[in-house]
């Protein structure tokens, strides 16, 4: 027959086991970084805002083609990257059983990085953008799933209303595509350069 003291002992051991269990669990510190490192919180924020950027500029985007923005120099140049994956929806039709990234969408990526650069250069004001002209576009290399595309865009000339860009898409160190873009800016409010 159990005595009431034994029951108390038993209860106590249960509590002990519980505490031991709590002690063995590793505790997460609040400010500790993950071993992989923080993969660019800022760029992630910009990626989420990308659709809003195109909406602000009045550009009919098809789908956002930039994964990460590496470097911006306001009013001068921008570097962005895109990872090409086999699961992308347009690769289902271009072409069936033979996925090749459409050259036209590489051009679209260069256009989009130019637009992000424009957005960063004019922080305020109502701004409309129109792709006036495309020149000297050359597609030099097929881009296949698994490649890492790097877009770099540079301003070559600023005329009264038209900014001229030279865009380049690279895979590793090979140039995959090049283009000259002329983008017309229409100010419908107070806009100024930073």
């Amino acid at each position: 027959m159990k005595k009431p003291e034994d029951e108390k002992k038993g209860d106590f051991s249960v509590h002990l086991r519980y505490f031991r269990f709590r002690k063995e669990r590793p505790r997460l510190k609040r400010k500790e970084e993950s071993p992989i490192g923080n993969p660019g919180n800022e760029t992630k924020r910009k990626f989420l805002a990308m659709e809003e950027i195109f909406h602000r500029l009045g550009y009919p985007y098809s789908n956002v083609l930039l994964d990460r923005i590496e470097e911006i120099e306001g009013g001068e140049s921008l570097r962005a990257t895109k990872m090409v994956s086999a699961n992308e929806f347009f690769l289902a039709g271009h072409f069936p059983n033979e996925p090749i990234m459409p050259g036209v969408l590489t051009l679209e990526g260069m256009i989009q990085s130019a637009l992000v650069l424009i957005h960063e250069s004019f922080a305020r004001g109502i701004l409309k953008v129109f792709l006036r002209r495309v020149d000297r576009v050359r597609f030099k290399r097929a881009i296949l799933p698994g490649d890492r595309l790097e877009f770099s865009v540079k301003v070559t000339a600023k005329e009264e209303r038209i900014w001229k860009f030279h865009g380049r898409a690279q895979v590793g160190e090979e140039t995959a595509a090049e283009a000259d873009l002329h983008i017309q800016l229409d100010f419908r409010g107070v806009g100024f350069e930073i």
Partner: protein
Amino acid sequence: MENREIQKILPHRYPFLLIDRILSLEPGKKAQGMKNLTEGEWFLHGHCHYPPSLILESLAQVGGIILGSKAREESPGTGFIGLFAGVSNFTWLRYPRRGEAVTLKMELSKSLAALYRFNGEVWVDREKIAGGEILLSFIKTPPPNPSA
């Protein structure tokens, strides 16, 4: 030429088949294609303009029809590979809108070995919207060997 026959020449399928019908065709010389813009398309979800880069693609597909139909006429059963090689001097006056039928005119102007240079124009009704030069590379491959 209806869409069924277009799909026999071009390898493009659903999200990237960007012409609906061929109105007139002279194989190896010029063609007129048509594209209808409607809300249901993936690039027009919630927007009203046809993105400028996709206009280039639908012009290039008309060019592919011009070259592909000629290759099929000369020797049926040949395979071919057409790729987009470049664009030069292409200008837009405005973007086509949802609910419009876009007419795409392409005419061969020069051929250098495997490179073909086209003059492309985009019309809506009687208004010219965009125009410029488009370069395609086109390589014929021999018909598949039955013994292999």
